[in-house]
């Protein structure tokens, strides 16, 4: 597995919700290598640090990568000014992705919070109807990718913090309902830390394997600078690992969340 660094043409750009953008790039070599849950480092002109953005979907046949990100500051704002036909400078694909069986067995449960929803879309595509996606957002106007998950065949459950759409509250209640059904073989989660912690605990209680994708402020993105540290208990030992290279995906049971 290797990664690439270069400028690739933007072939599609859409606004998904306020300040959340979806870009599709034509970069066959990176798309060919990409694994679900990996990320890219996007150069923001005029900024020292690249912005780590998860890969929403990789299409190996078309040679494309889809990236979905939210504008949170000057750097992401700068990137969001790029338009179709222009080039995006990325390092990709990076990190260790989710474990997605070649032939899915049982049912997958996907838990996504806000901008944590994108990196698991290809899991839903793999599992199709044998998958439930519980996606939590702040409010109705912040919902993204619900139609994409539904189109992939996933039973899609939407929660909003303010109750403006779907189930009011966090993903905790529907998560328990799904796990109680007893047919979930794997849980995949990406979102805010309290959500990941809840998903990891619920999966552990149900005796189901769980993987979580972590976020941390990054430097290089390739494992050289050891800035994006996270603590895990692995092989019976407390270890400080790199989110960018050893992750961003870790077993839910090994991450020390506090």
């Amino acid at each position, binding site marked *: 597995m290797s990664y690439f660094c270069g400028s690739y043409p933007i072939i599609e750009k859409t606004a998904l919700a306020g300040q959340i953008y979806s870009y599709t790039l034509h970069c066959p070599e990176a798309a060919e290598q990409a694994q679900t849950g990996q990320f890219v480092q996007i150069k923001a002109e005029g*900024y*020292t640090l690249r912005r780590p953005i998860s890969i929403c979907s990789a299409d190996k046949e078309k040679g494309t990568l889809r990236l979905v990100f939210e504008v949170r500051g000057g750097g992401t704002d700068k990137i969001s000014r790029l338009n179709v036909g222009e080039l995006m400078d990325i*390092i990709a694909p990076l990190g260790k992705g989710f474990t997605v069986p070649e032939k899915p067995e049982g049912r997958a449960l996907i838990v996504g919070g806000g901008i944590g929803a994108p990196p698991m879309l290809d899991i839903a595509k793999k599992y199709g109807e044998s998958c439930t996606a519980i996606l939590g957002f702040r409010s109705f106007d912040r919902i993204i990718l619900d139609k994409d998950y539904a189109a992939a065949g996933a039973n899609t459950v939407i929660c909003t913090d303010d109750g403006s759409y779907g189930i009011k509250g966090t993903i905790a209640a529907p998560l328990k309902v799904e796990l109680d059904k007893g047919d979930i073989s794997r849980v995949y989660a990406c979102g805010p830390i309290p959500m990941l912690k809840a998903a990891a605990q619920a999966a552990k209680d149900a005796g189901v394997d769980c993987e979580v994708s972590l976020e941390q402020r990054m430097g*290089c993105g390739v494992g050289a*600078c*050891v*800035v*994006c540290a996270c603590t895990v208990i692995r092989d019976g030992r407390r270890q400080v690992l790199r989110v960018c290279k050893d992750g961003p995906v870790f077993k839910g049971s090994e991450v020390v969340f506090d």
Partner: protein
Amino acid sequence: MSRPDISVNICGVRLKNPIIAASGTYGFGEEYTDLYPLEKLGGISCKGTTLLPKDGNIPPRIAETPSGILNSVGLQNPGVEHFINEDLPRLKRQDIAVIANIAGASIEDYEKTAARLDETDVDMIELNISCPNVKQGGATWGVTCAGAASVTKAVRNATKKPIMVKLTPNVTDITEIAKAVEAEGADAVSLINTLLGMRIDIHTRRPILHNNVGGLSGPAVFPVAVRMVWQVHNAVKIPVIGMGGIASAEDAVEMMLAGASAVQIGTAIFTDPYVPVKAAEGIEKYLSDNGIEKIGDIVGQVKPW
């Protein structure tokens, strides 16, 4: 005219070009080989290494600044034995100068780490007496002449390897520290390490770095680094390795005109991983374009007013 000679000799160690990856930004040379061979660089200063493995600081460990970053990694590293057994053999198989960067909480730590490295085929030892991100040791050695001299003296007695002492800019007069380590047998000095800084999230009122403060690097510090390299070059006889915000071949040439015999590139790699390669190529072109035969001919050749 034949191709200009961009090789340099630093305390008896030959570098095929004057570009060295700066400690802490390039790990142990494994991470960028997907893009280009490590051998494109003249040297690598490996991640700061301590006698025993170290977990580093609680994240967040990085914050962006105008034209730079603050970091507070806190010397996370797998320890000198891991370096010697796992990293050094791989690095030594390649045509590149390998510099071990060592740090410690006590003089004894530095001594033992250096003595251990003395038994290996590492090319050079860089003494990190300027890390601003650890509570014990680190910069506390580097901010006084007596502290810097005592670590240098101890390491000098522990190894015959060339020693390069990395200096902190967070001092009143960096030339005094440089002279102090030169007097104790340092073979070279490298500068500057990061400038101590701080950023605060105005909404949470929390510092962005969990360590509250951290080291500033990147293009923001470049003029400070050029000034200090120039001052130190004029104050000592040993070679000066220049670093601090170099992001292009032009920056590297400027640093060498100020007095650097070679340069280290760090933070700029995060923006563009190819910067060290482009810098090496660009330096050669600068020499060609200006009819200069060898890189040494520009070192310290700034013409002050």
